[in-house]
């Protein structure tokens, strides 16, 4: 069964990637992604550029609203995601627990919808 792990990080945690902590920060993520690849569970995924680089678009009443920044200004922001193929939620939770942001942030686990209903 496919699950998406959404990696949510605090601003402080994300900033580590660009400071003196960078080797440690990226070392942990590289090791984690490497372990998922080696275990053969990884179906895809990406790290995302920081939320400050986001542009958000909304169209209401035919009017376009383009906004700098992410869709919502929350304490934790999406830093990246992977799609993994594992037998069940327990296994997905186990992989989520290994994510470096599980302690400094959180991981949201969402089953991938096999096919939109009614198609």
């Amino acid at each position, binding site marked *: 069964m496919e699950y998406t792990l959404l990696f949510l990080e605090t601003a402080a945690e994300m900033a580590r990637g660009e400071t003196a902590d960078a080797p440690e920060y990226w070392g942990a993520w590289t*090791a984690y992604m490497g372990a998922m690849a080696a275990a053969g569970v990884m179906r895809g995924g990406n790290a995302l550029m920081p939320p400050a680089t986001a542009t958000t678009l909304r169209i209401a009443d035919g009017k376009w609203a383009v906004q700098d920044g992410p869709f919502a200004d929350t304490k934790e922001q999406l830093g990246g995601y992977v799609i993994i193929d594992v037998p069940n939620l327990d296994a997905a939770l186990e992989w989520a627990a290994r994510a470096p942001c599980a302690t400094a942030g959180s991981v949201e686990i969402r089953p991938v919808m096999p096919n939109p209903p009614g198609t």
Partner: protein
Amino acid sequence: MSEAARRGFEDAAARRSVEIAARTSYGRLLALLASRSRDIAAAEDALAEALEAAIATWPDRGVPANPDAWLLTAARRNLGHARARQATATTGAATMALLQDERDSHGAVPFGDERLKLLFVCAHPAIDASVQAPLMLQTVLGLDAARIAASFLVAPATMGQKLVRAKARIRDAGIAFAIPESEQLPERRAAVLAAIYAAYGTAHDTITGADPRGEGLAGEAIWLARLLCELMPDDPEALGLLALMLFCEARRPARRDAAGGFVPLRAQDPHRWDAAMLAEAEALLRTAARHATPGRFQIEAAIQSLHAETVMTGVSNPGPLLALYDLLLATAPSIGARVSRAVALAALDPAAACAALDALADRCATYQPWWAARAHLLRLTGDMARAHAATKTAAGLASDPAVRAWLLATLQE
């Protein structure tokens, strides 16, 4: 003291009495309530209602002289009401008889201890092994499903459903609240011990940087093991289990340095170990040994005792350590024990240790301790390129950030 302050003070005192009664007597009361009907869920509801009533009435009327007796009486009354409601709906002669039975028992001494029977029920072979430890934690200690779920790393809803199903099974399958017959006893007792150990998690600190499977509910598990030793004082394996947990627990303060970094066993400062816990563990192990019936937990405790001695004296004992692991594998084979044995073997024959580890590769693709051990052994044999790769995988599989950081730091050495 003003009236309001006095009132607040008494409320707080009453509330604290309820909390203390709940913590120390929960399992004892629940076992008494459920042992006859076998309906744990109904007993839980009745006890919860009694605790609520205590919080509501004790501040006004004062804490009763015997809080446990008060709670038991109130909970029994609640159970009776619930059954009576059911009985009018279904007409159950058996239920009415049971109800009468409960009333008659009021005169009897209310404080027998049925918790050992409750532990045996929780670890009954008809109950799914993965829910046995959670069931003990909930029924004996009154922990809620969400807290238990978190320490077993499953979704709270899943844990809740599993617990509900297990309780329904105990009631519907009529699993007896009884101490098993002597021919079944060893196997059933082993299940009780294994479930308590599962609640502890495997908080071992190793020399290789293996990731402990969470701290689990270490304090609660030790409490359960103490209870078991109290209820079965002549059982050497119960003593061994408590000794094992205390050996591991004694080292907890030394497992982190001042900056929160992971400290592997061989680098730990024995002065930071809990001396009282260590002494208790050694004494338990000696008492257990007098029975001259070694078992899995006594052997594991002996291994931890030897590890502790090695760090304290600086003199390693690879021969006796290996012999203990061989004994453990003959008694209770497990992947974890095989990996640990390979690490012990490395002190005598690194090449043979690597081969022993390689033989487990198929079953250990995502088993972090195997990768940490592999990294350690490859480093010993000087195969640095493969040691680096194994270290990275071990770090990627670690869920403890301190262990992960420690493993990644070894790449820089």
